[in-house]
């Protein structure tokens, strides 16, 4: 806290606007930077396939239950992958409850 912040608090003034500006800018850019039109279904399919190939090197996945999608919430876009694991390749069986994760 700076001297100025303290005085503002004591006088009940609004906090300085630069912080607000920074936060608003970060949100709006997170949105601007993901141009959905460039992520075509073709690209998404290709990406999904490559992700699965990598993961399948380490664990056995339940391919029936795999879900890869883009989800937008609070103006942030995320790539969400749900890849239920049937077993690790070392042989130890680990069932994953896919419903719980959905």
């Amino acid at each position, binding site marked *: *806290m*700076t*001297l*100025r912040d*303290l*005085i503002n608090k004591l006088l009940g003034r609004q906090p*300085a*606007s*630069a*912080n607000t*500006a*920074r936060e*608003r*800018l*970060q949100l*709006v*850019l997170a949105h*601007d*930077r993901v141009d959905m039109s460039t992520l075509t279904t073709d690209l998404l399919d290709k990406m999904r396939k490559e992700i699965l190939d990598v993961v399948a090197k380490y664990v056995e996945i339940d391919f029936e239950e795999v879900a890869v999608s883009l989800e937008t919430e609070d103006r942030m876009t995320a790539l969400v992958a749900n890849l239920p694991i049937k077993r690790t390749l070392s042989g130890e069986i680990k069932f994953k409850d896919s419903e719980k994760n959905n």
Partner: protein
Amino acid sequence: MANKSRTILICSGKGGVGKTTLTANLGIALAHSGATTAVLDADFGLRNLDLLLGLENRIIYTAQDVLDSNCRLEQALVRHKQEPNLALLPAGDPRMLDWMKPEDMKKISDLLSEKFDYVLVDCPAGVEDGFKNALAGCKEAIVVTNPELSAVRDADRVVGILNTCDVKPIQLVINRVRPNMMANQEMLSIEDVRSILSLPLLGIVLEDEQVIISTNRGEPLTLTGKDSPASKCYLNISQRLSGADVPIIDPSKEGKSFKDKFIRLMQTKIF
């Protein structure tokens, strides 16, 4: 000469943030340091670079005449009398926008880069055709912005496009910096803008009424050698652009009046 020539796009996305003023001042400063420099007005819709340089009455041919083979490049170039290392290639009339293609623009900048150490391309605002044409012949870029929401947002869009066009390096200039507002945290800080855009910072330019006065006269600040706040900044940018290892001007050290000192006192961390 040709291979070490640097063709630099000066762009912003948002209009009115100070591209043309930077182009004019940087052009003069680079020329003054001994580098042959061409400034190319790529804002065909609303050309202004000639006015800022005080060359508006000496234009005979334009970039359009060069493309139409009405004249040779040398005939279209307007040399600056006081700074003979600097030449302006004026924009043609706005109708050029109807038929200009990126190839045309590339042809012009290639011609210029054969003859000059630096080619500065003053870009129009926006991210449409005018911008994409101007971009065509450029290998590197300077993105100009102001420490304000809308200017930074638009700069980010421009950076997104430049990144897909293999323009490198892309450096940042933050214009119209007001040290007191920044100290009061009523303006995005230099570090805020730099880190949000994640670009290397080439320099900052302080808000300075001398900029307007020099524009009125058609004599860029770097030409008159006047020791004004913005003038210092333009020189600093020109040195850094040519590779000199000089520090960026620090706005928090600029104000020297009692008021400035008081504002700094208020920024002291108390806990």
